[in-house]
């Protein structure tokens, strides 16, 4: 892509999110969200492949619908309550609509159907941006409306997302769809705790972004998008395959890796709020996701796939890609659990 165009698009992505972060008026927040959508559309379609075009169209339609719903809800609130302030949204219909709209924007169940297909149509870098950066602006809004939302709605969204994310990923062999379902499951965990402690939502989002970045960046280095090609990656980068295995277990939420931290803190908060049944259901749904992460661990590192003789000793050339971000995110994905107290003070 033309470097000037690329620069404009990336800067627009930054602009959109920053606008939403900085705004206290619903219209400005909506504008930021729309700028984000517009900026990423050319990035998604840059491959000129029918699948990429289809993914772009689906993304545009769903995000536009969601943005229109946000506009509608905020207008409705302004008309009935007379307030355009983001955290003053109080009319029950408006809050429900805006929650559902933001859920559609990020891909919470039952509004998650677009996410696997869209993510599948993108290359890994754009997929990374979609899974991480594009979640920031909607979450800024979600955090701001957290006090006024319908508790039953949030709990339903959360539990359903965790279950859908777990069950949906079980049948996938394409890694991007698998990561989409993993995304949905993690979003479920983030939403369920929103009504009790929004700081934990933000912490979970941060750690989720770290772990997902690790996965996307490692897949990019190994240039694999299917389980089959991931399985043959061990001769090329043995260390990275081991680290991927550990990152997958971290995504699954196993102690003593970082991924356990948000789950632990969320379960603790749910227990404090006297919701042991919800906590147990969420915890058990994590087992579903863990199954397909474990299957990925098996195919990547713990077994040797059938391959021809010369693929087991390829030339290990130095990678031409920048590996510093991956280094940082891998270390954060694996080693942050002992410093949990320090991290909880930051949120």
């Amino acid at each position, binding site marked *: 892509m033309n470097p000037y165009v690329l620069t404009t698009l990336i800067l627009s992505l930054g602009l959109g999110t920053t606008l939403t972060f900085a705004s206290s008026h619903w219209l400005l927040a909506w504008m930021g969200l729309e700028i984000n959508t517009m900026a990423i559309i050319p990035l998604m379609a840059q491959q000129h492949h029918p699948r990429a075009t289809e993914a772009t169209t689906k993304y545009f339609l769903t995000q536009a619908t969601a943005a229109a719903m946000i506009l509608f809800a905020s207008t409705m609130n302004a008309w009935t309550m007379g307030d355009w302030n983001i955290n003053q949204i109080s009319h029950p219909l408006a809050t429900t609509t805006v929650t559902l709209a933001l859920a559609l924007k990020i891909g919470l169940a039952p509004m998650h159907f677009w996410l696997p297909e869209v993510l599948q149509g993108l290359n890994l870098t754009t997929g990374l941006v979609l899974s991480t950066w594009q979640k920031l602006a909607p979450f800024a809004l979600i955090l701001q409306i957290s006090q006024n939302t319908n508790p039953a709605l949030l709990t339903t969204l959360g539990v359903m997302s965790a279950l859908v994310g777990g069950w949906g990923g079980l049948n996938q062999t394409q890694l991007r769809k698998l990561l989409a379902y993993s995304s949905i499951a993690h979003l479920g965990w983030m939403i369920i705790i929103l009504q009790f402690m929004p700081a934990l939502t933000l912490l979970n989002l941060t750690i989720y972004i770290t772990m997902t970045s690790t996965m996307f960046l490692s897949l990019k280095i190994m240039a694999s998008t299917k389980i089959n090609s991931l399985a043959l990656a061990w001769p090329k980068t043995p260390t990275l395959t081991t680290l991927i295995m550990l990152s997958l277990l971290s995504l699954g939420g196993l102690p003593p890796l970082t991924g356990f931290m948000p789950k*632990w803190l969320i379960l603790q908060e749910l227990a404090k709020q006297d919701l042991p049944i919800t906590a*147990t259901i969420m*915890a058990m749904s994590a087992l579903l996701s863990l199954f397909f992460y474990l299957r990925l661990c*098996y195919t990547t590192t713990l077994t040797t796939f059938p391959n021809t003789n010369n693929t087991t000793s390829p030339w290990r050339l130095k990678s031409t890609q920048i590996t510093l971000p991956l280094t940082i995110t891998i270390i954060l994905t694996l080693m942050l659990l002992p410093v949990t107290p320090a991290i909880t003070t930051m949120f």
Partner: protein
Amino acid sequence: MLKILIPTLMLIPTTWLTPKSWVWTTTTAQSLAIALLSLTWLKWTSETGWSTSGPYMATDPLSTPLLVLTCWLLPLMILASQNHISPEPINRQRSYITLLILLQTFLIMAFGATEIIMFYIMFEATLIPTLIIITRWGNQTERLNAGTYFLFYTLAGSLPLLVALLMTQKDMGTLSMLIIQHTKPTNLLSWGDKIWWVGCLLAFLVKMPLYGVHLWLPKAHVEAPIAGSMVLAAVLLKLGGYGMMRITIMLDPLTKELAYPFIILALWGIIMTGSICLRQTDLKSLIAYSSVSHMGLVAGGILIQTPWGFTGAIILMIAHGLVSSALFCLANTNYERTHSRTLLLTRGLQMILPLMATWWFIANLANLALPPLPNLMGELAIITSLFSWSPWTIVSTGLGTLITAGYSLYMFLMTQRGPTPLHTISLHPSHTREHLLMAMHLIPVLLLVLKPELMWGVCH
């Protein structure tokens, strides 16, 4: 505690920086030094029972025997793995040893933890190295299934435990074992409290394992390589027993009624798994089911919550740990020579490997609880306390003892006695390393006959 933890963690740089030909020697020597250092924990200095305490870790007469067992087992695991790992590239050998060391570190931190949540995190943390050992270095395709069963059975039990512990922390304000042992028994009557009780215990019952939830164990033990089987049988099962003993302190008085179905399952499991042992064709599977049988007895002993029950449980855990690990090492000596676990293929070995037959003999005698070995001490204490709880239990425990004797004798006679088939006469003679391994397993068992106070420190 740090005197042991830091040398154990430092074993990891040792493994990676030692030159190739010295790796196994150095790691064995260093882990043996740590094991000998851990024996200092056996001196209980304080009245309250908790000694060597730091902010988050301490040892008391319940955890000390298990800690010493854990530390003792690491050099044995390294010794046992030396042969089957040696064909691999050196970095993979180093990774294998690193996994064993990491597992050791988590186990020491688990047994030494004073906060129950720390115990929980270390309990779960042991799952990952064990999973990697089973699925990466196991030998058959079934190892993947074994790893999945292992991970999911344990997690399905331990996630409710996490929720139950967090609920407890909300109600009691703390989860420190030092404080919980002094809290008043709570008045718990509702259905929710009963489910909380089950949540607290389920993880440990799955880990022990209790008979109904034991399906992961034969798979995991059989598919694991020798170090994996050793650590699983000797220590990881005892994590379940130890956890149960710690948790039941705060579960009174619910346990009096609610424990009934689990005690029944445990007792029934002794007979059922013992009977299965009599029909096994796979040697490691036989030893695995024998582990389930013994741990059923331990579970029964813990659930009735009497001093003799606890004492018997801890003695049986230590003795069974050493003996079961010894049996797995013996089965491994067969496996390394024939690459088969089938009992029928490795028969009549007394003619070919007579010295190993001695070890088979002693290990099987210990397994069937011959007096005066500590296995009998533990079993007798548990059987007596179960009898005082209800005389009818003598039916299952007595029958269980009989069946245990039956399959132990069966194992010995099948592998050692009888005609030697012609395909086994060219087996390699026993290595000194293997004799050393067996000696280091069984001599502590014999020595514990002389000073069992080291084990039953909880209720002197």
